[in-house]
């Protein structure tokens, strides 16, 4: 089973995202900030990451940059999922190596199509 790391400091969002992503056939792991996400990624690289931007300790962008440095970290599909919904942020995320970008609020349909685009789901 493919794994997806859901990184968000809101427990509510993590729960909603977990439900959606489990339904797409993933095993879901949660992290409440970038630092925890990085530790979990070092332990075991996920196939996909759904990543919030603004979080305490380490934000999403920092996490992404660190992830891309890990061995094999360039192969992980990273989908930002954030309230930062302007062009500048999107471009910054893409430049840092994000594969897709979801502007909150999101729904199951959006997550599903974005995962499909990345070839994460069959």
């Amino acid at each position: 089973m493919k794994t997806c790391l859901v990184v968000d400091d809101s427990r509510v969002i993590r729960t909603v995202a977990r439900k959606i992503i489990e339904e797409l056939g993933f095993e879901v792991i949660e992290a409440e900030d970038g630092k925890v996400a990085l530790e979990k990624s070092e332990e075991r690289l996920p196939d996909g990451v759904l990543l919030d931007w603004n979080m305490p300790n380490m934000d999403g962008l920092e996490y992404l940059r660190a992830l891309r440095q890990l061995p094999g970290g360039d192969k992980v599909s990273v989908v930002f999922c954030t309230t930062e919904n302007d062009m500048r942020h999107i471009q910054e995320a893409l430049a840092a190596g994000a594969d897709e970008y979801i502007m909150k609020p999101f729904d199951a349909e959006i997550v599903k199509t974005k995962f499909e685009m990345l070839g994460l789901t069959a």
Partner: protein
Amino acid sequence: MRVEDFEYLAKLLKDRSGLIVGKDKVYLLETRLMPVARRHGLKGLDELIPKLRSGSGGEKLMVDVTEAMTTNESLFFRDTRPFDLFRDHVLPGMMQARGGQRKIRIWSAACSSGQEPYSLAILLKENQAKVSGWRFDIVATDLSKEIVDKGKAGLYTQFEVQRGLPIQLLVKYFRQTGDKWQIDAGLRSMVQFGEFNLLTHPRSLGQFDIVFCRNVLIYFDQPTKKKVLEGIADIMPKDGVLYLGGAETVLGVTDRFKPIPGLRGIYQRSDGEPAVKMA
């Protein structure tokens, strides 16, 4: 709702747009027509229906009622695969067949707010090197003026641009204006929008090499489907191709078209050789 009122509305909708409303959809009529009634200063359907019947609500009321009942749901690159097939097979095949005149005409026959024709325009832009020196006419039509105007403006909500559109394409081809996203002027100029009712014969629109008629026939009954499909066959060269939606087919409806083997959702004229084949 009284039976004769339901029957009156169902007939009105079928005559005007082809839409078939089953008896199980009374609630849908009610929920969608209440806002129309209110906008026209009427209390409810009890006031709306007599106005329609007597004609005293005018053409505007008829149009509003019809448009309120159509489903405009659409998304960019809907179902993905048809657009991959367009890029990889339909476009190259048609270009080979049209090498002489270097001109291809495409019709998006129920274009809603433009996601379908703009997806095609984006694909052409993304393959600019291959299509340079060619002329593409993309004609996009829909029944509803309101929705055609929306397509022309090319303005979409955050929700709409997230459905089906890869983020790189959003960044490349859209500008943010307030809380909306607008497709850039270059792409807008590639699509000609207009109002057109599929219940009328399309001969006035000219000939089309490729026709997208997706996710609209599902709302029609068999005779209407047949009439629409045969009208399309009439304005298509013998080697033209037709796209239908995932839940639609020509089989059992008309023998003017048949499926192209290996290209799901794409049809050819039965009396011709399609320009496009599965290699």
